[in-house]
């Protein structure tokens, strides 16, 4: 970790590349602000500043070892669940059920930390699915019962179950395929998922901005186009092909598939959170990350890509 620029750890090398990209972005934004001072670049500046903070926290967590990574993702889940509960309609009587929902976070990440896959994979989909309505029944309030049961569990699935897959990735060992470059597969796999998911967002945006004509989901996200979607998926698949052999135990061909999965799933995650925001009639899920909005605005794609990539890589490489 300390030999930052002479490391042969692929994760460190990729972080150095990201650092380079951030420096370039910061310089470009600085030049833009200098050149046309009448245009307001506040949001661009905030956005890039927030990227610095997010990348720094992510890099620190990932390079500080397994426990730090798991606690980091558990905390991210907590913030996301809190944001979700803050924007959806809830009932006064639900307070204590929401409290139990929060308590599922440390348990879920504990299962990941001890590598108890069986419990990890059914705890929220089965046990919490059964426990929440039971606890709601004890409250004795039937008005909006279905809404409460459905929305609390859906939130847990999206913000805790999905994100915890990143935590489970941390404990995956090296395989025969990548044993010569790294002793753990985890950090590389996480970096691969998060990096490709975020770059896919950027790629879809850029393709849509430059070529976009045909709206793909006009009622949910009017700015999303077929051109942006396909261009993004293709770009991400290509990136996956290049990066996978370096960061993961996957071969190039599987990297292409993984990139395509991340591209498609990232898009669906994005518009799913958009649909939620549209129903609630809000623009951002909160104002926590300056220039980006809320944590769910940033995690939207990841809630879909994390579990799908996890199962893809678990099936093909382990």
């Amino acid at each position: 970790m300390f030999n930052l620029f002479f490391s042969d750890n692929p994760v460190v090398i990729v972080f150095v590349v990201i650092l380079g990209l951030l420096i370039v972005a910061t310089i470009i934004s600085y030049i833009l602000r200098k050149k046309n001072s009448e245009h307001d670049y506040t949001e661009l500046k905030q956005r890039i500043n927030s990227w610095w903070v997010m990348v720094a926290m992510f890099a620190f967590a990932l390079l500080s070892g397994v426990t730090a990574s798991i606690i980091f993702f558990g905390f991210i889940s907590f913030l996301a669940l809190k944001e979700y509960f803050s924007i959806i309609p809830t009932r006064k009587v639900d307070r204590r059920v929401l409290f139990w929902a929060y308590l599922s976070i440390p348990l879920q990440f504990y299962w990941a930390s001890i590598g108890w896959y069986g419990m990890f994979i059914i705890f929220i989909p089965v046990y919490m699915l059964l426990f929440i309505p039971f606890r709601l029944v004890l409250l004795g309030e039937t008005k909006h019962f279905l809404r409460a049961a459905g929305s609390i569990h859906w939130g847990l699935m999206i913000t805790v179950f999905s994100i915890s897959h990143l935590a489970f990735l941390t404990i995956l060992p090296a395989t025969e395929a990548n044993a010569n470059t790294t002793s753990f597969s985890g950090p590389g796999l996480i970096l691969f998922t998060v990096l490709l998911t975020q770059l896919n967002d950027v790629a879809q945006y850029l393709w849509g901005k430059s070529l976009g004509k045909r709206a793909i989901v006009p009622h949910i996200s009017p700015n999303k186009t077929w051109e942006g979607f396909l261009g993004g998926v293709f770009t991400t698949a290509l990136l996956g092909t290049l990066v996978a052999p370096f960061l993961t135990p996957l071969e190039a061909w599987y990297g292409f598939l993984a990139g395509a999965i991340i591209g498609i799933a990232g898009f669906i995650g994005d518009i799913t959170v958009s649909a939620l925001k549209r129903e609630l009639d809000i623009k951002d899920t909160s104002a926590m990350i300056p220039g980006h909005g809320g944590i769910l605005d940033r995690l939207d794609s990841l809630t879909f890509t994390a579990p799908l990539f996890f199962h893809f890589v678990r099936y093909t490489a382990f």
Partner: protein
Amino acid sequence: MKLINHTLRLLFFIVIVRPLVKIIIGLNYRNLPSLPKSGPGIIVANHNSHLDTMVLISLLPIRLLSQVQPVAAADYFLSNPIKAWFAKSIIGILPISREKSCQSDPLADCRSALNDGKILIFFPEGSRGEPEKLTEFKFGIAKLASQCPEVPVYPIYMHGLGKALPKGKFVLVPFFCDIAFHPPLLFGGERRDFQNALVKTFEQLKDKVKAPSWD
């Protein structure tokens, strides 16, 4: 003793209150903050929870801590010695009497605190009431503003704390706290006008915070 209490107050806010407010609860600014940079000043806010005071104090830089005094009901907070010590020395409240029959002027202490350059936190609803419902403002704030017309009044609207820790509940359930600010109001010469302006400001601020239903 004063030094000990002062240190305890500082520690309480740095070690417990700030992490609780900023990490467990989380603040969601709905517009640019407008806060006093020094005393004297009056912060006026809606009241839903014991957390209101904690959040408002955490909005200010820690160097202003010794100047901040939440105005609170004497009958409630001074009901037993331990509670009174905690309220007065750690939270730093300025107790006032809620009883109408009281002979002395309940606002006299507020005036002298403002003269000393303090920043007062004022809840014109009088009590926490039902969570996340704005009740009618009492007239005390207009009275105080008229008596100290040069002191700026900062309206702050908060949403979410009544869900996190409503009246009568002891378990904190994390929810984001939405906050909307407004540039300071100054007393214009008529109490009734000031009161109306304040009420109108809070209605505007309430619309800025898009609160989901809580029934």
